[in-house]
């Protein structure tokens, strides 16, 4: 390291690299500097952003993804169909049900089976619990980015309510692997719906407090209003997804345009905001939690009214060992049946999509009629949102980058797969 006394800023040629204490700085143009942010950075997330700065205004932003690329698409080609579910789930374990559901749907499309009515509602139930938990996680991380530690503590505390519910339903805090081809892994436990209603009531109350301390907080508004604006036509052009898209005034939600599972029979709205800035993106998440709570109430009513039978398609249930049926008739729930180990899926190509917490996720599954898929292609919401950094961040000041990053709710393991 050169000693500070030698550092002369004048006469610094373009293209020359100089050593400053702890970093290398390269001058890439007149008054233009390149800095590397991450993968270790104060927020959360494991992605490097290469920023070129003019003064403190970003002129070029190059997101460098792939720090969590764990080669899921390749590994899926060597695993049997049922084992791909836990594999792709690791993409976003905080949103596990939504992430795996389209894969299961694609396999179901290839096998030409439809889950029974109750299974559909059970899937919606966990999907919405996951969506709430995932939005709360996103808000908590947003708080970390902005240095608003209350907004980290509150949503993470409230998220535990929903994680706990999911744990009671499936047995795992995060990695549920709940939907399986033909149905779900188990039925709800006794007294679950009452706890669910209690959680819904609690969360409604809390959302009001979030609004007071976070969304209507003058400091937060000053930092978020008018920052990272994505106009409607640009949002469409960039193909971004999820709450970020809806904050820009595009009314697109897979639950609406192509209702899957039981969403067609449920009554809910899709919140859309027009501003397209960071604050609007935060608002969309809060409004979506409200809608999810509405859905949860309806699902709870529906599940109570339905007879407790048929969480698995007859095709599989008929083959289940007698022990399972006995346990189910006695206790009302069983674990996953070992029926899928040699699941052969007919040849074909299927494409399925679903609305995960961060946006639309699509799967393309191709089978050759063997035990393992020929190709699994997944495009996750965060990967499609990553393009925002490149096209929206330039023109803002460097200190707006955390606000933009946080507001997009970017989750690197999901983007990198």
């Amino acid at each position, binding site marked *: 390291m050169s000693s500070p006394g030698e550092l002369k800023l004048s006469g610094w040629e373009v293209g020359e690299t100089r050593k400053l204490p702890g970093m290398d700085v390269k001058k890439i143009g007149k008054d233009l500097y390149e800095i*590397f942010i991450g993968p270790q950075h104060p927020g959360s997330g*494991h992605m490097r952003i290469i920023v070129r700065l003019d003064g403190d205004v970003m002129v070029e932003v190059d997101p460098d993804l792939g*720090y969590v690329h764990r080669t899921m698409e390749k590994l899926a080609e060597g695993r049997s169909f049922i084992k791909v579910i836990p594999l792709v789930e690791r993409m976003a374990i905080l949103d596990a049900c939504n992430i795996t559901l389209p894969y299961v749907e694609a396999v179901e499309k290839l096998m030409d089976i439809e889950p029974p009515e109750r299974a559909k509602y059970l899937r919606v139930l966990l999907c919405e619990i996951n969506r709430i938990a995932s939005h709360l996680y996103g808000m908590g991380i947003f708080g970390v980015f902005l240095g608003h530690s209350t907004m980290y503590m509150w949503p993470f505390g409230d*998220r535990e309510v929903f994680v706990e519910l999911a744990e009671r339903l499936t047995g795992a805090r995060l990695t549920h692997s709940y939907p399986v081809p033909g149905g779900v892994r188990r039925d709800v436990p006794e007294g679950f719906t009452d706890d669910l209603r209690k959680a819904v009531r609690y969360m409604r109350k809390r959302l009001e407090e979030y609004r007071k301390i976070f969304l209507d907080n003058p400091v937060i508004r000053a930092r978020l209003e008018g920052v990272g604006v994505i106009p409607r036509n640009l949002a469409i052009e960039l193909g971004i997804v999820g709450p970020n898209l809806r904050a820009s005034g595009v009314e697109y939600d897979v639950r609406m345009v192509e209702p899957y599972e039981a969403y067609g029979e449920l009554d809910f709205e899709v919140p859309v905001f027009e501003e397209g800035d960071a604050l609007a993106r935060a608002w969309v998440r809060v409004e979506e939690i409200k809608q999810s709570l509405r859905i949860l109430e309806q699902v709870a009513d529906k599940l109570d009214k339905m007879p407790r039978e048929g969480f698995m398609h007859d095709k599989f249930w008929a083959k289940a060992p007698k022990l399972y049926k006995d346990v189910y008739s006695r206790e009302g729930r069983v674990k996953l049946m070992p029926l899928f180990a040699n699941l052969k899926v007919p040849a074909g190509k299927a494409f399925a999509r679903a609305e995960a917490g961060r946006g639309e996720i699509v799967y393309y599954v191709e089978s050759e009629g063997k035990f393992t898929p020929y190709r699994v292609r997944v495009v996750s919401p965060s990967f499609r949102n990553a393009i925002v950094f490149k096209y929206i961040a330039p023109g803002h000041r460097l200190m707006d980058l955390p606000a933009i990053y946080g507001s997009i709710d970017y989750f690197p393991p999901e983007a990198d797969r």
Partner: protein
Amino acid sequence: MSTLRSREARAGPPEEGRLYVGNLDAAARRARELLLGKMKLGKLVDWGTAFSLWPVHFTTSCCGCEFAATWSPRFDAERYGALPWLSPRQTNLIVIEGTVTKKMGCALRLVWEQMPHPKFAIAMGACALDGGIFYNSYNIVRPWEVVPVDVFIPGCPPRPEALARAIVELQRLIREKGVASKWIEEGEREDKPAPIPKEDLCSWWRG
């Protein structure tokens, strides 16, 4: 700075036996000899380090969800004296949260090298043990080949309680085995296998 250096130059090389404010390295060496050589202060160092663990904010994979939850109100790991901190230069613990990819391996080593001694590593999750569900992936490295790991936590993902337990376990290790004070005395860890060379990890790195 410049005035200090010129005064130093006039005074010639630092004499042993006196503490010079301007020469931090010599001062630190002196202080270490004074404190550790003559008195039983090693125990104090261990005790102090055990209750001020600062994990660096470096999330490598999906176990990070549970890492975040560990410091959330329900589990509140702050009561053990550990709080995630932002800059590696001010931290002494790294929690490797799951898979380390080849791209991340280099970053992990760079962060590790930036942290001051004595420093510790906890490897969290099945992926950090031996790959876990991604055992045959072509893009991962085993974290124990990159940094010397003190405590491993099994599970996929481990529950927040397990991470809290690992922190308590690390505190016990530090206090019973004197990891921190030994490290200061000896300068480096000899009880751990040598990690893979940095050139292997970082040959592709730009920046």
